[in-house]
Each structure stands twice: as structure tokens, then as C-alpha cells.
């Protein structure tokens, strides 16, 4: 299984805080996962997840480029952070 999470503006724009996806070997990396989410979600998801400043994290670590995924991974999509 893959656990997918969305935060802040991304969560609001998708109307979705997260979802669980059954593990499939075909979803082998972050870019493939994103492509699958966009296929299933439609135009809104393509627009929101495709923003140039979108940040992706795998197991709590920001992934600055495409990264292999494994069964049980937690993947998050979120906008630039504004804490402190």
C-alpha cells in the first residue's frame, strides 16, 4: 500500500487530505505515482500537482527529483512552507 497525503493549499484545492493506494509494481517511482493520480483525478489534479513550486516528500524527506517508491511508503504533496 502507498499512503498519499496532501497539505495546506494543495489539500484545499484538491478537496482531499489523502488516500491509500494499493501497491502495484507499475507505480515504481514518484513521477509514475503523480501521473497515475493525475489520470484518475482529472484536469484539476493535473493543474494543482503540476505547479512548479510543488514539493514532494517520501517518508518525511523532501524529494528534489524523481525517487523510487516501495510498498508501505508515505508520499506527501505540499506547497512551499511558511512556518516560524
Amino acid at each position, binding site marked *: 500500500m502507498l499512503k498519499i497525503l496532501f497539505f495546506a493549499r494543495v489539500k484545499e484545492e484538491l478537496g482531499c487530505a489523502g488516500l491509500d493506494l494499493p501497491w502495484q509494481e507499475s507505480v515504481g517511482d514518484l513521477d509514475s505515482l503523480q501521473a497515475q493520480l493525475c489520470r484518475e483525478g482529472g484536469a484539476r489534479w493535473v493543474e494543482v500537482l503540476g505547479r512548479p513550486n510543488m514539493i514532494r516528500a517520501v517518508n518525511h524527506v523532501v524529494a528534489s527529483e524523481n525517487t523510487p517508491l516501495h510498498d508501505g511508503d508515505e508520499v506527501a504533496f505540499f506547497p512551499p512552507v*511558511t512556518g*516560524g
Partner: protein
Amino acid sequence: MALSVSVQAEDFDVAALQRQLFSGAHEEGAIACFTGYVRSSSAERAVHGMELEHYPGMTERSISGILAQASERWPLLAASVVHRVGRLVAGDQIVWVGVASAHREAAFSACEFIMDYLKNEAPFWKKEEGPQGAHWVDARSGDQARAARWDDDRRA
């Protein structure tokens, strides 16, 4: 060395937090602290309050990583971060960073380094509420430039 991270909805007591930095051996010559507050205006818009969201799990991990980096880089005796989440109003405390060291140079540098990273790396998002409604705060490009200078320091 004592490194501590707390992400919490509750308010905090800066004097109690500062006391917790002490080991009891009186090696601490210097404690630098930073407290961040909700301002009543932001980017020239009035702010009544805000909602602070975070990514549970990643937040704590990211801040612990920042503290470990700081303690490798400077001779620290203790460092602590408290960051609030949830609903806050103007004047509320948002974040506290405290660093103890034998000398002030390390305490100041590490405290500022940790704050720069909290602004840029830790997964918190502010949604401000004003007379025109609520909106997500945009990341400041100045914050990223400030964080990058630490990399420049390391290369120099």
C-alpha cells in the same frame, strides 16, 4: 547534549523553557533565544488570527535534523524548539528557539540558523484571517536567500 523538539497547540512559558536548557554544571555562559509572534498585520493586510497547519511526523523529524546539524556545526550545550499549531490570534507566541553554549558566538549563530531552517524546511503552513477573509501565506523569497547563506558559509 540535550536537544528537544515540541510541536503543540498549547502556549508556552519562555522562562521555563530557558531554565530547561541548563545541565546543572554551570558550563553555560550564553543563551540566545528567539520568540516569534502573530503580528496584527502582514504584507500590509490586517490579520485577526491564523490557522497553522503542519505535517505530523515529518515536522518533528525535520526539526530534530536541524538541531542535529546545528550541534555538529557549533559547540552547543543544549538546543530546544517549540512550535505551535492550530488557531492563533494577533499577539500569540508561535515559535521559540533557545540555544545554550559556553560563548555567545555559537549561541547566536545556531539560534539564527535554526530559525532560518524552520522558516524554509519545516513543514508548517500559515493561513491568515483578515477583514477580506482567509488566505494562505506565500513563502518569502527572502527567507530562502537567508537559509542559502549558511551553505555559502560552509563552502567559504
